Structure formats: structure tokens, C-alpha cells
């Protein structure tokens, strides 16, 4: 296959491209037709009702499972093109072939995932129409124009995405720019899709644009409601993190199943890049989350309290546990990676203080706000608050802890980058001192504000978290700004031995992917669950038998089942990508 730019203007690739794109369009067309027919048949066959019940699973659980799976695949297919494009651009800028191959490897995972996303979306739509007819009708009375827009966007996305894949070889060399442009379009369409779908979801949380009697007044206001933008941003970042984690898991799988050292080396590197993307996009996520939380409080204090302080507060302990574990896993992966870098052993001694900070941070992060205690223990504590441990239960301590953990993980990564390199510039010592100082100052600011915030009212305290974040971000920027000239022309101790990494490092990558997926399922449940017995919060009540909020145990079991099913489906997708890959 011609890859070096010498492809004819037309020829086999044109036929292949049009065939591929048409196949994509055809698939979506067929799916839509099936959905239409199924919806028509079901609504004609079933008796009229406000709610219908599905045997076995029940309405809510069925919709929940399908919606969450749809969301996970959608997150994957929206997240992957973002960093596939970035990788491709890096490849173009550095003229390194391996980046281009990597971007291609990422994109390869997409094709099947698109189909599955669409199938799940169609099933979800049928379920909504069949099980929640009244509610669906109401939603469509408000959002009908956006449904049409969504349809147009789906076709657009399918066309550009398949174009992106099939023109990969044809648009190389001088024509690479055009391919990048197509990649950009894929991301634009994808983001638009996300934004439109978010309008429906966020409207259910923070309705706007309807009058007292729930009649629509302004579609624009309904779509751009209070929580719309925070969720857009939150999901965009999370999609990248999620996509990166799944791509890394794919690489880990290929690593474990590899037959040759060459293959192992390639997928070791892919896993590293994937995990780097995942962690990189993950770090700003809490801040997007704070913004969303703030908007929820603004919209309804009651909703905010039920999310953070009420019944749902227990689930945040789980979230804290997962986030802490993610930090652990990311650092352990990097440290294990040091083993394949000649000269990496110079930094082994830093692992002790770093692990200490991470563990202490995790301990604070995991200290429950509401302590479970027996009567005797409570009497000993002198109340439901522990005078000492209680200090770690509040947001101020947790903000401080998570900022320090972020800083540590960043440091881990920077040391990893430096692994086999010895700076040769004349100001090496001064540069290193400045870097250490930046990190220390940031840590000082974070801890200082953390302690100080115990002495000020909450409204001031909330502002402090911003300073802490800013200090961490500035320190990171300063560090990188010094690091780049510092390592220019650095002496290399040896070449990174890609592939020479213990197998358990690959399990760290799986752990990242599983935890991300589970966390996504959990957060989705919280976001949806805090509406409690409302379809549309405060406006349209859920009058079905499923209106109650289930126990956390049941909810986590459902989330867990969804995650297992997701990984089974994803394995199927990967298996097919593998088969296609071997064929080509």
C-alpha cells in the first residue's frame, strides 16, 4: 500500500473510502429504520399507559444499564479521536513514524465501537418510548428540533469518522494537512453531538425554559440550562481520560498476548502513552467536578445537600477510594516503568517520600465525614465527631490532600521523563534548585491554605481551593518551563528498553481502565440519582413504581454488572479490531 505520498488521485483507495463510508452510513440508516419500526410496532401493540413495566429487570434498571453502556461507548468514541488527532499532529511535527502508527492504532479501535454505540443508542430510544411513553413524549415536545439536529450530527460524525480512517494511507506526506483537517472535523462533530445530548440530560436536572405549567417557552433556555456547560466540560475531559485508559488497557492486553519482543515493545509504548493521556486528562477533572457541584447547589440547595451531605454522601467514600487507588496505580506504573530506563535507578530513593505523601494523602482523602462508630466509641469520642480525625473529614483537608497527591504524581512523571538523561547545560544545579523550590513553594501554599481554611467561614474557604489549585498549576508550569531547556542536548545513559517491564505493570493499566469505568458508572448514578423521585427535577415527578431511591448496595451491584458487561463487549470489539488488523 502506498504510504509515502505517492498515491494516485483516484484508484483503489477512493473506492475503498467511498465503500467504507457508505457502509457506515448504511449501518446507521438500517439501525434508524429498525428503531422506527420497533417503536411504531411496540406503541401500536402495547396498551396506552403512562408507564409500562419490563418483566425481570424492571423499567429503571433496563434503561439504566443500556444508557450507561451507551454512554461508556460514546465516551470512548468521542474521547479517542481527540487524542488520536493530537498524536497524529505530534507525529507530523516530529516526523516520527511511530506516532502516526500509534494514532492509527487508536483509530482502529473506533470503527466497531461506533456501531455498538449506535446500536445501544437505538435500543435506549426504543426502551424510552416503550417504557416511559409519557415522559418521552413530554421531552420531545420540548426538544424535538434538537432530535433532528442530533440525527444530522450522527450522520455527519459517521461520515467524517470513516473518512478519517479510510483516507489514512492516501492522505500522507504533503497531503497530511487534509487528513488533520478531517480529524478536526471528527472532533467538532463529536463535541457537537455530546453538547446536544447533554442538553437533554441537564434539562432533567436543572430545568429551564418552561413556564409554570411546564409548557416550553424557550428551547434555547432549556438547552443551555444551569448545569449544561459544566457537564459538557466535565464529560469532554472524562471522555479523553476514559478513552486513554481503555486504549491503554487494549495495549496491555496486546502486550500480554504478544508473541515477539518487537510487538511487546510497541504495545508497551502504546500503553504508556495511553495511560499518560488518561492521567493527564484526569487531573483537571475534579475541578470541572467542583464547578458542576457548585452549579447544582446554585440551582437547588436541596439537590446539592442530598448529593454531598445526604443519602448520597456514602457513595463519595467509594469515589474517594477509587480516586486514591488511581493515584496509587498511576505512580506504581511509572515507577515500574523506571525499571526499563537505564539510569532510572538514580531516582529510586525518591519513591519513599513520594509513597509517604501519597499514602498520607489517601488516608486523609478516605477519612469519612460521617464516621461509623458504636455507642461506646461515640461516647469515647465525645460526640459523633472525632476531635482529631474529624479534622480530616472536611473538604479543606481533602482539597489539600488531593493537591499534594496531584503534585506528587506530576513529580513522578517528571522524574520518569528524566530517567535516562543527564543534563549537560552549565546551569544544571541552579535549574534543579529552582525546580525543587517551585514544588516546595506550591506544597507550602497548598498546606498553608489548607490549615488556614479551618479558621475562616465556608464562603472564604471555598475560594481557597482555587488558590491551592493555582499554586499547583503554576508550579507545574514553572517546572516544565525549566525542564525543557534543562534537558536540551542532555547526555543519554542508555536507550529505553521498551517491552522490558514486568507483567504486573500491565495489570496496573487494567486497574486504571476498570476503575475509570466503574467510577464513571458510579458518578453517572449519583448525577442521575440526586433527582430522586423526579424525572425533571422539581417539575415532572416520577410516578412509576421505580420512583424510589434504591439502596447503595443494590446500586453498586448494578454499576458493577454494567462494568463487567462493558468489558465483555469491549473485548469483543478489540477481538474484531485484532482480526481486521491481522487481515490488512
Amino acid at each position: 500500500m502506498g504510504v509515502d505520498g505517492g498515491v494516485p488521485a483516484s484508484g483503489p483507495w477512493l473506492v475503498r473510502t467511498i465503500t467504507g463510508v457508505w457502509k457506515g452510513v448504511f449501518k446507521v440508516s438500517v439501525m434508524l429504520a429498525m428503531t422506527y419500526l420497533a417503536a411504531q410496532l411496540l406503541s401500536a401493540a402495547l396498551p396506552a399507559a403512562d408507564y409500562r413495566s419490563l418483566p425481570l429487570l424492571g423499567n429503571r434498571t433496563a434503561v439504566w444499564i443500556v444508557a450507561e453502556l451507551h454512554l461508556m461507548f460514546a465516551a470512548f468514541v468521542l474521547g479517542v479521536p481527540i487524542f488520536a488527532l493530537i498524536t497524529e499532529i505530534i507525529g507530523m511535527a516530529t516526523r516520527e513514524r511511530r506516532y502516526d502508527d500509534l494514532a492509527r492504532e487508536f483509530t482502529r479501535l473506533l470503527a466497531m465501537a461506533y456501531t455498538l454505540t449506535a446500536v445501544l443508542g437505538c435500543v435506549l430510544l426504543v426502551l424510552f418510548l416503550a417504557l416511559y411513553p409519557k415522559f418521552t413524549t413530554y421531552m420531545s415536545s420540548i426538544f424535538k428540533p434538537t432530535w433532528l439536529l442530533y440525527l444530522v450530527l450522527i450522520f455527519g460524525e459517521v461520515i467524517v469518522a470513516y473518512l478519517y480512517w479510510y483516507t489514512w494511507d492516501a492522505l500522507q506526506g504533503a497531503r497530511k494537512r487534509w487528513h488533520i483537517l478531517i480529524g478536526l472535523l471528527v472532533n467538532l462533530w463529536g463535541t457537537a453531538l455530546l453538547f446536544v445530548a447533554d442538553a437533554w440530560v441537564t434539562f432533567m436536572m436543572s430545568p429551564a425554559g418552561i413556564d409554570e405549567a411546564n409548557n416550553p417557552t424557550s428551547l434555547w433556555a432549556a438547552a443551555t440550562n444551569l448545569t449544561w456547560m459544566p457537564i459538557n466540560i466535565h464529560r469532554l475531559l472524562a471522555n479523553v481520560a476514559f478513552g486513554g485508559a481503555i486504549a491503554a488497557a487494549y495495549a496491555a492486553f496486546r502486550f500480554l498476548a504478544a508473541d515477539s519482543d518487537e510487538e511487546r515493545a510497541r504495545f508497551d509504548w502504546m500503553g504508556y502513552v495511553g495511560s499518560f493521556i488518561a492521567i493527564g486528562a484526569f487531573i483537571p477533572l475534579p475541578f470541572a467536578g467542583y464547578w458542576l457541584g457548585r452549579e447544582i447547589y446554585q440551582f437547588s440547595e436541596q439537590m446539592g445537600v442530598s448529593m454531598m451531605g445526604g443519602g448520597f454522601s456514602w457513595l463519595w467514600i467509594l469515589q474517594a477510594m477509587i480516586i486514591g487507588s488511581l493515584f496509587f496505580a498511576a505512580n506504581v506504573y511509572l515507577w515500574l516503568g523506571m525499571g526499563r530506563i537505564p539510569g532510572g535507578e538514580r531516582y529510586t530513593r525518591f519513591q519513599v517520600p513520594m509513597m509517604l505523601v501519597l499514602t498520607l494523602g489517601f488516608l486523609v482523602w478516605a477519612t469519612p465525614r460521617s464516621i461509623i462508630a458504636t455507642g461506646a466509641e461515640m461516647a469515647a469520642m465525645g460526640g459523633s465527631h472525632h476531635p482529631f480525625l474529624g479534622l480530616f473529614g472536611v473538604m479543606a483537608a481533602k482539597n489539600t490532600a488531593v493537591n499534594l497527591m496531584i503534585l506528587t504524581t506530576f513529580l513522578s512523571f517528571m522524574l520518569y521523563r528524566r530517567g535516562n538523561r543527564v543534563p549537560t547545560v552549565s546551569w544544571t544545579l541552579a535549574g534543579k534548585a529552582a525546580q525543587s523550590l517551585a514544588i516546595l513553594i506550591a506544597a507550602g501554599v497548598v498546606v498553608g491554605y489548607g490549615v488556614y481554611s479551618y479558621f475562616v467561614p465556608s464562603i472564604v474557604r471555598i475560594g481557597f481551593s482555587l488558590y491551592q489549585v493555582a499554586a499547583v498549576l503554576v508550579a507545574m508550569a514553572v517546572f516544565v518551563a525549566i525542564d525543557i531547556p534543562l534537558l536540551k542536548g542532555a547526555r543519554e545513559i542508555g536507550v529505553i528498553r521498551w517491552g522490558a517491564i514486568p507483567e504486573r505493570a500491565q495489570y496496573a493499566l487494567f486497574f486504571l481502565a476498570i476503575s475509570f469505568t466503574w467510577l464513571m458508572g458510579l458518578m453517572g448514578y449519583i448525577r442521575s440519582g440526586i433527582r430522586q423521585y423526579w424525572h425533571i427535577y422539581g417539575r415532572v415527578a416520577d410516578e412509576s413504581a421505580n420512583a424510589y431511591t434504591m439502596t447503595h448496595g443494590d446500586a453498586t451491584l448494578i454499576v458493577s454488572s454494567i462494568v463487567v458487561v462493558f468489558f465483555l463487549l469491549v473485548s469483543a470489539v478489540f477481538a474484531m479490531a485484532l482480526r481486521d488488523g491481522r487481515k490488512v
Partner: protein
Amino acid sequence: MLLRTFLRIFVFVLLVVGIYAYVGQLVPQFEEHPPKKKVITAQTGRKELVAIGQELLRGKGGCLICHKDSETGNTRGPDLRQAAVHAPTRRPGLDGEAYLLESLRDPEAFLVEGYPKMMSSALKPPANLTPAEVKAVVAYLQSLGGVEVSTVVTEDDAAQSQRAAKAVHRGRALMDQHACTGCHKVEGEGGDAAPDLTRVAERHPPAELLRKLNDPAAWTAPGFDAGIMPSFAEIPEGDRQEIVAYLAGLSGIAYSATGAASPWSHEGVRLGMIILIANILMLTALAWARRRERREVT
């Protein structure tokens, strides 16, 4: 090799997911149920009763379609802000509370001067209030007029109210809500000003009924004056569909409110055509590219 790797990873997935699920079982477990629907009992406080009455005036009672309880509003019926004030002097032998109760239960017993006979009993559709709810409305009217809230819900009222509450088809509830039953009779209940709709679906198919709701001028039943019925194009489409589904059901005709109201039905076919054309266009392009390719090869 592949399968073994897959199985190992799958076990790992189950392990991690299992740990998370296990921790999920450790936190306190409880279910939260939606609040119970508000039921008026003999113990309901006075202020709460007034609040329920106010809600009834606006919502279920449909009183504000004709009356007003604020500066702005409809004047087809008397201004309710003064109702309790004038009540003691309206009917000799009846005190204020008794008059208000009578005016709700049997409106035709006494008509305020200058207003026509048009209200049906609040105990019957379209308002269809329960005896306890009627008391709540009176309580609200008394507090609105600034007189002492004297009405009391008895155990008997509450018991009767519970009997009265029975399942109603949603389309029927909407007909009451939008005051259709003020003029039309359905299943033996409602006004006489307009045709009986009980068997209307035998005469007109659902699509026609929908059209009539949107555009009352479409046709008028023989024997009735045209131009009386207001347009119901304002009410949400889903509600209109529900009403038609209810009426169709009365005549034994199956009609799905939801299928017809789904956004897929009206434009569905048209959209399908467009998608089909797009597919054909792409196939044409494909054929063209194939031909070109063959030409270049030869």
C-alpha cells in the same frame, strides 16, 4: 494464548469490580421513597387546609378558568376575593360557611346577580373535588376574604373522600383539567352545552378528532352552533393525543397516544426518504469511482 490472556484479565476485572461492589455493601443501606400524596384528614391544620384549597383552585378544581382570585384573571364568574365577605348576606338562613359550601356543591341553588347559570357542581366533573377538598376550597375562600376560617373537615368528609378517589384514565383527567367536560358529556358526566363525546370515535376517526382539537372550525356537529368551542392547539401535543386515545378507547378503537405522539411518526417517513436518497447518492458515487478505477487500470 489469546484466550488464556483474556481469561486472566477477565478474572482480574471480576476481582477489582468485586472489591468495589463489596465496599458498596459496607455503607449504610436504605431506600428512600417519594413523599406520599397529600391527603386531607380531620387532623389537617387550618393553614395547611388553606394552602391545599389554594392549590385546588388553580389546579384540579379549574376554578380560575372562570373566576379570579387576584387582580388579574377571568371574570366569567364572580370575583372570589369578595366571595366570603358577601357570603353571609347572600341567602337568608344560611351563614357564610354554609352558603359557600352550598355554592360549591349545588351552584344552581343560588345565582349571583349578573352571572349566568354555567357552573356544574364541584363534586362532579370537571372539577370532581372530594367533599374534603370542597372544604379546603371554602377554607381558602374564607382566608382570602379575610374572614375567620371556620370550616372544619370531619372524619366523615375524609372517609367519603377516600371512597371517591378512584383510578381515572389519564385522557379523562386531562379532559377535566382542560375543562372539556364543562361543556361536553362523557360517560354520563359533564355539561350539556356541546355534543356527548362518549361514542364520538365511532363517528370520527382519531385523526379527525385531533384536527378538531387543533382547529375547532374544522367542522361542527349538526344541531350545535359553530364557533363556540375554543381552540386547544395550545395544550401540549402529548395531552391532546391522550385525550383522543381515551375517546377512541370508549368506542373500542385501539389508538396509541404515545406512538402517534412520538417524533418518529410524523416526520419518520419523510426522514426515512431523505436517508434513503442519501444512501442512493453514495452508492452512485461508489459506482462512479469503480468505473473510474476500472478505466485507469485498463
